[in-house]
């Protein structure tokens, strides 16, 4: 090799190193790429799915389509509620497609798998759809924010309200995976703390169509309350069938621990009326929420946003603000910046992201309207109570996140 070519090669290397260095301190590839990863065709597709992608796009549009002079792109994929599928999409997005932030990701088992990938590869992960509190406890990561709700908030909201209304003894129907078990565990703790007792539980496979066997077991337990530690189609099928087996007429009460507005819509108010639910967002709460919901519905065949979809909008907006502030899209750097800024939009008033990644905001205890009270489609909730963020979420000192210094 001649001296000339060595010199050339080393110049090229130096130039390359300079480029890499520049990219690190800056927005990578001069594009901020947002990956919306969720269930596009299964039982959680209506509460997240295309609606979350629409919400992310709206957030980008409202932000102006650019951060500084970098373009913003939104990509999406279907994780089919399978952890292996979810984590391999996340890996491919980050390694090959230059995705800078992954959002939504319902189904806790998938979210936990994606969490491993994003924390290892310094990519921001803003979860709106999944519920497990493990994401901000044992599995917490400096690149992660849990935006909309979690199993603790659900159990504190609904569990406590139901026990206070006299539902002292509980029996759980639990979806047999990470989320269901966590929800049952968190709610059991709340029930016991408030003077109630847990008589038993039964685990059902995810996506069960017939709940009658499980309902009979719950009926036989004689518990005051049958707690549904599941979500989506599992919850609606269980409620619908409980109705036909005379469970409610027999004096037992159903508590849907995680119910979305799309579930209420699927059940119809005849069946769903009177259910107590906890939610992080209801579209008909303020002028701002109504304005967002109307714009969203226009793009979604009239469907109003669920809390998950509204959360995606809020999370993406806050993320873009943070990227803009520090001119960097490295996972830990942006999330650190996001933690410094309060969140004020239609979704959250004075929301804040804690050290463990939990976004703390007010939650709402709602009761489903009767058909007489409702003025039409999507007019489904009466807000019974606002649960302040500090009460709604697990206190920091009770958590087990390694990022928290105490």
């Amino acid at each position, binding site marked *: 090799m001649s001296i000339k070519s060595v010199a050339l090669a080393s110049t090229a290397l130096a130039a390359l190193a300079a480029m890499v260095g520049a990219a690190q301190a800056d927005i990578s590839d001069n594009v901020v790429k947002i990956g919306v990863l969720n269930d596009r065709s299964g039982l959680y*597709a209506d509460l997240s*799915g295309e609606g979350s992608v629409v919400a992310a796009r709206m957030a980008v549009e409202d932000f102006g389509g650019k951060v500084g002079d970098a373009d913003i792109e939104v990509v999406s994929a279907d994780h089919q509620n399978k952890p292996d599928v979810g984590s391999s999409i996340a890996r491919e997005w980050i390694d090959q497609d230059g995705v800078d932030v992954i959002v939504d990701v319902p189904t806790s088992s998938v979210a936990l798998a994606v969490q491993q990938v994003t924390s290892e590869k310094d990519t921001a992960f803003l979860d709106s759809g999944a519920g497990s509190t493990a994401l901000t406890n044992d599995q917490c990561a400096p690149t992660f924010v849990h935006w909309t709700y979690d199993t603790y908030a659900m159990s504190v909201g609904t569990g406590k309200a139901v026990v206070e209304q006299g539902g002292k003894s509980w029996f759980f129907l639990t979806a047999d995976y990470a989320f269901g078990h966590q929800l049952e565990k968190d709610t059991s703790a709340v029930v016991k703390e408030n003077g109630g007792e847990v008589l038993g539980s*039964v685990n*059902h496979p995810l*996506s069960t169509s017939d709940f009658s*066997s499980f309902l009979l077991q719950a009926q036989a337990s004689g518990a005051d309350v049958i707690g549904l530690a599941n979500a989506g189609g599992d919850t*609606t*099928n269980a409620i619908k069938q409980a109705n036909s087996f005379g469970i409610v007429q027999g004096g037992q009460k159903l508590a849907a621990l995680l119910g979305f507005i799309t579930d209420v819509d699927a059940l119809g108010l005849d069946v769903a009326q009177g259910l107590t639910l906890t939610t992080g967002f209801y579209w008909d709460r303020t002028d701002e929420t109504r304005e967002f919901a109307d714009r969203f519905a226009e793009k979604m065949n009239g469907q109003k946003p669920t809390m998950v979809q509204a959360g995606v909008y809020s999370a993406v907006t806050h993320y873009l603000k943070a990227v803009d502030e520090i001119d960097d899209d490295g996972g830990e750097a942006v999330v650190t910046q996001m933690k410094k800024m309060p969140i004020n939009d239609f979704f959250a008033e004075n929301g804040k992201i804690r050290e463990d990644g939990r976004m703390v905001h007010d939650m709402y205890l709602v009761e489903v309207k009767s058909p007489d009270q409702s003025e039409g489609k999507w007019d489904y909730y009466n807000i019974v109570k606002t649960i302040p963020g500090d009460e709604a979420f697990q206190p920091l000192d009770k958590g087990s996140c390694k990022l928290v210094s105490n």
Partner: protein
Amino acid sequence: MQEILGVPAPLLFGQLLIGLINGSFYALLSLGLAVIFGVLNVINFAHGALYMMGAFVAWLLLHHLGIGYWPSLLVAPLIVGVFGIVIERTMLSRLYDLDHLYGLLLTFGLALIIEGTFINFYGVSGQPYAPPEILTGGHNLGFMFLPTYRAWVIVASLIVCIGTWLLVERTRLGAYLRAAVENRELVRAFGINVPLMMTLTYGFAVALAAFAGVLAAPVYTVSPIMGQHLIIVVFAIVVIGGLGSILGSILTGLGIGIVEGLTKTFYPEASSTVVFVIMAIVLILRPNGLFGRPRE
């Protein structure tokens, strides 16, 4: 209270009855699948999607035309049956001379397209469908509360299953069908229009699936994905019963319903897998299924 294996007896009886109800759905669906395999030699993977279509057509009839449950029980299977005939004439009939795999792939693709289309328009959460007034409420049997509608499901599906079985085993038309299964060319030589018979068989079996769909509409939420998981279970039932065996599929359908119900009591976590465990065991011990004969 009397107990059997640590489970209170009334609870166990309840589970058996519920198993029987779910079994009647399985029987209706596996019957159609078995008939199609027996006569057309096609593994109809679109069966679950067509079952969903039955439920959806009933919902659409109610929602847009105000046609209620009872007429839908007849009209919805007819509409879906005609849809099936179109599929058979335009696509499926071209594959009869090819390997099973082609029919399976075609119908699997069709199932995805049908489900995707409905998801696109109606989402996955589902639509509410109330049972007719006369079938609401229920009876306290002492050991359990039996909703009237569920009792009706057993009666309706048993009538249809037995009717179909009689039609195939005891009538002249059934005899032609069975003969066509054995030797298509020979039956054709006798001047019987075999292609027409195959078309009608497919239409009829598809209508059976749609009938099960209408029956299911008030029990489950009417959703585009309601048939997705069912098809795999029903296919396993047909394999256990013996491919192409009509009586086998009916009895196995009812039996699997009961086994599933018991699993939900003793070990609920396994309730969605137990049918495949049984299938594996049956295939090892009796490769042609419980009621099947070896095919050459």
